[in-house]
């Protein structure tokens, strides 16, 4: 029998390693022939450690499994959840980017190929650069790192730039709270990212790639490093990529704990070994990026979605979605939520459906108060905005942003003044220091919110002015978008700011 115990760090963080060890020793005691596979996570994080047992009739799910459950699991007396593929959470998804995650052994290239891996790269290897770029453009794929910029247009700029060397840089800095899709796919299906980067390289004519991976993800670093090594040995990377006669190789580089290094130009400076200060644009990284050369900088999910676009065709991908948001959103449901995890579905589902229907409301069972969408620079969405469909333009029209598609749910005990204060504090801590409105403004922001808390009536107007200054005078979205969480808290939840004031009077 085969037993799947996720090696994903979320699963490990709640005891998956101990469960795997117990399964091995209990199986030995019973003389059972058990093959343990450390897969990625299926994304049902509330059920982790989620163990799957395959006795020949499909994969049956159990979870959360504790060490004490293991004897029953092996004896067949532990209550299960049914076949994994039949679970509501799985059936309701459209898994394109995450099709293999949690299914395969992350470090088995054979398993990867058996599940459709490398089909896209093989197809791309027979195409010209211009055809590859056209395919990505036709898919409608937009950057999943936050800004939603059309990936095809970015690649076209790099393709048309003339330079002795070009680069593919994968942004794996995933600093937004509430997001873990990048981590999950790097740990659960690393070859997908490698394949996506290789297709990008063939498209724009790059021979070298880097994954800039945050140091807070030691498990993802280990898996990606091994996967690159295996891919190189198998000829998926290297001097003669899959026998195409073309060269592409890549390295994993580790960040050093700076949130701003997720901003693409700061990332490039960091990769070059400099302070991670944001660069003014122009020049665009597509023209003058890493070491001044044309560089594609794309998020992990953007790049990891490229293989399935080439495997199934651009149109098949573009057929999903809403308006100008084509394909699937890899939603990360987090915070105070009953069913937290990764849920991939076509753009267009409403915020309320994600939180209440899929997420099941709060974990505490109390009413939802707010949902921060898009990380620390994203707005707090009140329940009155739950009709907003998941789409770039649709969120924009409702004063929010989708960003990297992370949702952090808060119940009615959340203090929105404190959340606004934290947004300012975070900006002050992580500011790269280049612009005064960000560097100094954020510090003043914390002080001003403290004054509001202490009952200073005039301070609210001051905070509003300060946010305007930060919006207008900041070079990048750290200083420029911190006003989103702050002002959404202030305007949507005025009671949290007023009560303090009255209480102090």
């Amino acid at each position: 029998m085969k037993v799947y115990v996720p090696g994903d760090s979320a699963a490990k963080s709640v005891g998956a390693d101990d469960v795997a060890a117990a399964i091995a020793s209990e199986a030995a005691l019973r003389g059972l022939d058990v093959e343990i596979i450390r897969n990625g996570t299926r994304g049902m994080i509330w059920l982790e450690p989620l163990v799957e047992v395959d006795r020949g009739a499909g994969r049956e799910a159990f979870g959360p499994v504790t060490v004490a459950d293991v004897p029953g699991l092996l004896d067949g007396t532990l209550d299960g959840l049914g076949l994994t593929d039949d679970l509501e959470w799985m059936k309701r998804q459209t898994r394109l980017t995450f099709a293999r995650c949690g299914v395969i052994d992350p470090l088995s290239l054979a398993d990867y190929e058996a599940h459709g891996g490398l089909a896209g790269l093989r197809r791309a290897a027979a195409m010209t650069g211009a055809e590859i770029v056209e395919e990505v453009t036709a898919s409608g794929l937009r950057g999943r790192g936050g800004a939603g910029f059309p990936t095809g247009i970015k690649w076209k700029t790099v393709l048309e730039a003339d330079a002795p060397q070009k680069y593919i840089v994968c942004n794996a800095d995933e600093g937004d709270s509430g997001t873990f899709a990048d981590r999950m796919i790097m740990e659960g299906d690393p070859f997908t990212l490698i394949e996506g980067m290789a297709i990008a390289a063939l498209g724009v004519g790059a021979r070298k790639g880097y994954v800039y991976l945050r140091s807070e993800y030691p498990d993802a670093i280990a898996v990606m490093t091994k996967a690159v090594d295996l891919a190189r040995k198998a000829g998926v990377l290297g001097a003669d990529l899959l026998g195409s006669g073309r060269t592409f190789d890549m390295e994993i580089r580790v960040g050093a704990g700076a949130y701003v290094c997720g901003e693409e130009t700061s990332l490039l400076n960091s990769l070059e070994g400099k302070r991670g200060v944001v660069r003014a644009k122009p020049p665009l990284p597509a023209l003058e990026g890493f070491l001044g050369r044309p560089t594609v900088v794309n998020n992990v999910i953007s790049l990891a979605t490229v293989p399935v676009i080439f495997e199934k065709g651009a149109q098949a991908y573009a057929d999903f979605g809403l308006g100008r948001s084509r394909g699937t959103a890899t939603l990360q449901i987090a915070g105070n939520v009953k069913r937290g995890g990764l849920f991939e579905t076509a753009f267009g589902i409403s915020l309320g459906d994600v939180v209440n229907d899929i997420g099941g409301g709060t974990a505490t069972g109390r009413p939802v108060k707010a949902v921060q969408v898009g990380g620390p620079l994203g707005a707090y969405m009140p329940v009155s905005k739950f009709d907003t469909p998941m789409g770039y333009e649709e969120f924009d029209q409702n004063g929010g942003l989708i960003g990297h598609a992370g949702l952090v749910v808060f119940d009615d005990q959340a203090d929105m003044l404190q959340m606004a204060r934290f947004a300012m504090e975070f900006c002050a801590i992580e500011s790269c220091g280049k612009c005064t409105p960000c560097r100094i403004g954020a510090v003043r922001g914390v002080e001003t919110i403290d004054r509001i808390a202490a009952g200073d009536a005039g301070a609210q107007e001051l905070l509003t002015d300060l946010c305007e200054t930060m919006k207008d005078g900041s070079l990048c979205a750290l200083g420029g978008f911190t006003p989103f969480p702050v002002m959404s808290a202030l305007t949507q939840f005025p009671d949290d700011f007023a009560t303090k004031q009255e209480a102090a009077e």
Partner: protein
Amino acid sequence: MTRHAAAPTVAELSDLIAPHLHLEGPLLPILHALQDAFGHVPEAAMPLITEALNITRAELHGVMSFYHDFRDVPAGRHVVKICRAEACQAVGGTELAEATLARLGVAWHGTTANGAVTIEPVYCLGLCACGPAAMVDDKVIGRLDSVRMDALLAEAGA
């Protein structure tokens, strides 16, 4: 974490620096290699780095001080990073962190009197659906509560 008791020799330091010199942008990999080996970037390594990369001492200091990860003095024997970000706040992370700091009698970045544990804030570990979360050295821990936190700290010798 590997930690050398005696002060590192020039040969030891050079052995850690040299393998990275052919890289495009070698400075961060060098600093990580040194910190992985010694728990901090030893003072004795500074002139070797500036010479090998042809940068000034001020430039090196500028880079070291920009990043939260790098330290020029040793931390405690174990580093416990507690997530302060929004998703963990939504499930009681702030209360847990404050209680932990109070119990140990340290502030953020502080080290316990016996030198066992340094407590650092971290802004997201990607464990946002199973918070509150923390990391002890390189080991991730989710669904923390005060009982599990106490057990972790005891194990780390705090």
